[in-house]
């Protein structure tokens, strides 16, 4: 079931807002039996992983079929190179080898027939988090064809005083146009906040410390009229909307709803354990990791999306004029979208890039694990999902490497490395066989976040041999029994 913003507001009793709703304190009961809220972070990195640098062997596993091993008793050197920085968190990791960006492959196969933008970056950006076919834009790069998973969860977990989601990070530009990954709806990119200081100021817009003094200065009195101004603004949208055509009306109603949400958020106090302070030390990625922690700790959102940049070559020890993109193409022998080129330096560079991302991923886990909540830490109540734009840096979409961290309130069974068999014929003729669809991981994530969905995005497609590929149902192998 999909809900739109208006239905959601109605459900929340905000359709005709008169009094400010308050948040249930139960959500934050400290160890008193009530479950801490579940959160999700989408950690999205450009390109993909060099398989040899990411995968780990599963001793004794049969050649075919699903296989798994425990990560808990492995020593750091036994970890693959890219995952090694995360060794301290091995009990909380769930490494998933062999998923496929199946909806993207299906999209490519279809666009090969009908014409349109087939650039592997564009279709990856458009399809990674939406799980549906891209929207073609006649000459311009294609964009997401539907609401992305993070925004779907945002709609369902937002509340007065709590943002649906925060999307942070870097405006990734693979084709001279910004590639956003996260979409509010078809062709509508979710705004990405690229400056940590601005992102912090945004959080302060909702952050309300427990109580306000009774004596107000004039400035405070004016500040206290913020809700009153927003109420007046919303009233103007309500007055004008009925006089417009359907498209104008829809836009103004959406805008009005957002103003009402902001207004409703203003009276809601943040948890007393939360202190909103900004720490501008470290690189921007590190600052964003801390902001995600802060937003979760203050319950200012339950969904965060972080779009990582392509590092400047000097960040990972390469000359400034290195073109990472060329290295991506050349990083895997005999498995590229572009002939049989292979350059060991390129494989090394892509691996170093993966390690660099893993180090920042570790920072995020560290930050979340440092915040006690209930009987554990924030990390126990969160799932951090590392997905990649392409499956492999060689611009293919069929063999992806996905890392989950944090159990999301014991929904996911962590401390494991799992491998899915590649059993589906690719929708694209001549391509290698592929594992389960990323859409099915998203069903698991929806359920981890308390939803009952059994599908997300595309539900079925055809392999090039005419076989049917089912994209529905959760990946139960990842769940706790």
């Amino acid at each position: 079931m999909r809900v739109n913003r208006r239905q959601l507001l109605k459900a929340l009793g905000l359709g005709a807002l008169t009094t400010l709703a308050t948040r249930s304190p139960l959500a934050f009961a400290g160890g008193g039996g009530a479950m801490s809220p579940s959160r999700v972070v989408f950690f999205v990195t450009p390109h993909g992983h060099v398989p040899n640098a990411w995968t780990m062997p599963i001793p004794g596993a049969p050649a075919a079929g699903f296989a798994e091993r425990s990560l808990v008793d492995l020593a750091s050197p036994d970890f693959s190179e890219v995952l090694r920085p995360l060794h301290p968190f091995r009990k909380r990791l769930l490494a998933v080898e062999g998923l496929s960006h199946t909806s993207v492959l299906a999209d490519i196969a279809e666009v090969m027939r009908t014409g349109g933008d087939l650039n592997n970056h564009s279709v990856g950006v458009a399809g990674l988090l939406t799980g549906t076919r891209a929207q073609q834009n006649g000459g311009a790069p294609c964009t997401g064809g539907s609401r992305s998973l993070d925004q779907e969860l945002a709609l369902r977990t937002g509340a007065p005083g709590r943002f649906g989601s925060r999307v942070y990070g870097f405006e990734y530009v693979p084709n001279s146009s910004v590639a956003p990954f996260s979409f509010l709806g078809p062709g509508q990119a979710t705004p990405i906040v690229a400056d940590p200081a601005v992102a912090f100021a945004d959080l302060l817009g909702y952050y309300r410390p427990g109580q306000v003094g009774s004596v107000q200065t004039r400035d405070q009195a004016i500040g206290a009229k913020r809700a009153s101004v927003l109420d007046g603004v919303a009233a103007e949208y309500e007055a004008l909307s009925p006089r417009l055509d359907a498209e104008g009306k829809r836009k103004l109603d959406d805008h009005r709803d957002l103003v009402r949400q902001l207004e409703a958020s203003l009276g809601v106090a943040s948890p007393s354990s939360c202190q909103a302070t900004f720490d501008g030390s470290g690189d921007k990625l590190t600052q964003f990791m801390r902001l995600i922690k802060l937003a979760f700790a203050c319950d200012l959102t339950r969904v965060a999306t972080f779009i990582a940049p392509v590092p400047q070559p000097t960040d990972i020890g390469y000359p400034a004029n290195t073109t990472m993109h060329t290295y991506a193409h050349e990083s895997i022998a005999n498995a590229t979208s572009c002939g049989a080129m292979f350059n060991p330096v390129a494989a090394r560079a892509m691996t170093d890039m993966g390690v660099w991302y893993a180090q920042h991923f570790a920072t995020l886990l560290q930050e979340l694990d440092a915040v006690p909540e209930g009987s554990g830490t924030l990390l126990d109540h969160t799932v951090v999902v590392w997905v990649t734009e392409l499956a492999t840096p060689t611009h293919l979409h069929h063999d992806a490497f996905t890392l989950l961290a944090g159990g999301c309130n014991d929904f996911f069974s962590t401390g494991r490395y799992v491998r899915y068999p590649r059993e589906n014929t690719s929708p694209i003729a001549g391509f290698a066989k592929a594992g389960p669809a990323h859409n099915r991981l998203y069903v698991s994530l929806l359920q981890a976040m308390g939803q009952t969905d059994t599908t997300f995005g595309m539900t079925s497609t055809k392999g090039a041999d005419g076989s049917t590929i089912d994209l529905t149902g959760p990946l139960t192998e990842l769940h706790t029994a």
Partner: protein
Amino acid sequence: MSDDEYLNALRDLFPGQAPALPPLPHETASAGFANATEAQQPSDVRISRYETIANLYARGATADGAAVAALVGCTDWSMPTRAAACTAKFIDAMGSRLFRRPLAADERERFQLRFQAWQASIDFEAAVFLTLSAMLQAPQFLYRPEPLPPDASNGASRTVPVEPYAMASRLSFFLWESVPDDALVAAASRGELETEERVRREAERMLDDARARRVLWSFHRQWLGLDRVLGDEHLVRTPEVDVGWTASTPVAAAIESQLFVENVLFANGTLADLLTSRRAWVNADMARIYGVAAPADPAAWSEVELPQAERAGILTRVAFLAGHSHRGATSPPIRGNGVELRFFCQPPLAPPPGVDLSQPKADPADGPRTNRMLFEARTAPASCQSCHRGLNGLGFGFEHYGAGGRYQALEQGLAIDAHGRLYGTDIDRTFDGAVELSAALDDSSMVHRCATQQWMRYALGRGLVDEETALADAVSLNFERSGGNVRALLLDIVTSPTFRMRRVGK
């Protein structure tokens, strides 16, 4: 409003202010243009930015008693009766300025009631601040609503004239990328925007105004992708390409193209000027790249004429050339696609999956190879040629210009072959280099038609519907007959039925 329209409007409405603003979220362009209404969508970040920015401007405009007095047009609001008169005056004047039309009775009443409540709760000055903030967040300001006529829902689909105040906004957002001035609103109030002749007269006045420069740049920047050069990929060039390239070079390249477009096209410039004029406004860095004398003041921009054998108009300028290249090498297909898409309105077909899209490299065993040789070999298969015949035919014409836009006679010690060929156009021919290509494009009716379609799309803020393509063809013919005069084209568009009429009803 697009972000550019919004920010220009604030600048024009509050000329004394320039507060530091938080960044607005990225717009999703539709078919290349951010002012397309279908691309504009509210989000929680966006409305939060609107609120912050409204408060910044409202605070600046009410900074002290003198500022408030100037804003409301009153000096004394100490007595209730005087305050009431001042309130009415302020709400009517500010409202009509921001909403681009007189306030309706119900609007006036809503704002007055709120004003009075805020005044009673705090004081008069605070009420001015809060009211201004609310108006700056209201849909009448942030959007360009054109309410339906009262009987629209029960009538059949039909076209009706755009009402005069909405017409004033259509003109100003198209020709100034901003709100109308008082004179334009006054003309609307006198019913002077109801005839073609009156609209033309107003538009001529507006095109003489410096604000019209904005739209020349905004349109060409988006149409020709002149801001591509500001992307991350272009912060760096390899030393072999240009050892003098720094992070400020792309910015200078964008400014150079902005000065070129504005100066050449403002006041009766033509498509030929855009394509072939060698006038240029350069700083030291651009002078270095073009090989011309630098201005004495390294920070200054001064006019020069570029070398005749090497340069022509916008296609031979750094912003286009480097913006359609890679860090270490040129890409003839990208440049060729830049011309096909933008001048022939021909969107590219994607290469089939599985083909090699990386930059071709010479095998050292083969000895030196020019970029052209490498691309010719790479795209030789018949399956590539259906597209690459045209892309390469255009793109090879640019091979005298390196990935940083510098002119080169030799590459790897080999002579450069910049012969190209146009296929599938009304001007199919061979040409030698981008200077000849630029002149050839001006001979093309297809190029005039494509430019016209893009201008109309930009003017209307939406794609053309079927019934408008015939009109676009007629406007395009006029454009060609006028010698490609851009001013004449814009006047033709604003006086055309599609700009002055709207479709309503089911």
